[in-house]
């Protein structure tokens, strides 16, 4: 897990969730593509990286000289507030201390939700938690390094959304719990665990009809897309509900 955003309040803010954006005091700064990729890469790493590694990762098919030249160009095109967001030495590059990154905060939230002991203790994550955990990392970026990080974030946020749904449900906040579970379902419509989380919320709320409707919807989707049925585990989850709703 990289840095958290605590120490940099008031400085430049980089958003990676839902797309790249850099904000300083004023409106979002429009950056050339190479500079965006540089800042995004440094934000994902969250530590100092050797220039040579940065260049080789961001411009993998270029020669070493060409990649270094592209890196210098990307740095040179960081103007104003954008320039102050990078800490550069002769050997390394990283984000300066005052920079905050939305992904760092979202990752910290996810890890808190998933920590078995800390998760129960830390305060209510608030209404911003669901949108933060629902956002994809750098959608439509196809660089290898971005795809790997994007998948890593997807896995983390799915588990966190399910944990959040269970937590909110146990507190009787069924509407928010269902919203968290639905966000996970939307991210992975064919995966069973988000669907189970949503069904558990409906059951906890005392709404067996909706739980069974969700189970049926999922079963139909699985059959249509994959030609398979839900697992025994999911069937057991709803097995005692059938008599309740039958006339």
């Amino acid at each position, binding site marked *: 897990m990289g840095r958290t955003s605590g120490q940099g309040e008031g400085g430049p803010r980089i958003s990676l969730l839902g797309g790249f954006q850099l904000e300083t005091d004023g409106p979002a700064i429009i950056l050339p*593509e*190479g500079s*965006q*990729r540089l800042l995004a890469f440094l934000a994902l790493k969250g530590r100092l990286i050797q220039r040579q590694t940065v260049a080789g990762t961001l*411009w993998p*098919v270029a020669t070493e000289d060409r990649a270094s030249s*592209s890196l210098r160009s990307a740095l040179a095109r960081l103007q104003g507030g954008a320039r102050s967001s990078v800490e550069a030495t002769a050997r390394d590059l990283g984000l300066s201390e005052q920079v905050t990154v939305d992904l760092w905060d979202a990752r910290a939230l996810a890890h808190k939700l998933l920590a078995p002991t800390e998760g129960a203790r830390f305060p209510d994550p608030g209404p911003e938690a669901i949108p933060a955990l629902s956002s994809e990392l*750098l959608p*439509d*970026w*196809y*660089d290898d390094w*971005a*795809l790997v990080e994007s*998948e890593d974030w997807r896995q983390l946020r799915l588990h966190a959304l399910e944990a959040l749904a269970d937590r909110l449900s146990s507190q009787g906040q069924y509407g928010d719990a269902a919203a968290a579970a639905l966000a996970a379902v939307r991210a992975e419509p*064919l*995966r*069973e665990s988000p669907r189970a989380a949503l069904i558990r919320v409906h059951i906890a709320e005392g709404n067996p009809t909706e739980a069974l409707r969700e189970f049926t919807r999922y079963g139909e989707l699985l059959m249509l*897309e*994959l*030609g*398979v*049925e839900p*697992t*025994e*585990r999911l069937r057991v989850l709803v097995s005692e509900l059938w008599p309740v709703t039958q006339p």
Partner: protein
Amino acid sequence: MQEATGVALLTIRAWCEDGSDHPLRAEVKIADDVASGFKSTLISVNAEAAVEAVREFLDSVRCSSSRTQIVLP
């Protein structure tokens, strides 16, 4: 997001649904050109279907001076 276009991309995400009669889930996503984004997605419980999608993708890249559009089953 690449500066140089003309790069095709195929990704496979695979996971297991423990307890299913057919536990494998393989999601294959294909971009003929990353500048245009992913165009096709296949999700299957059958490893052979994923392998076949990879084979078709590689054939299309190898043969496509004229950029063949790949349509997954």
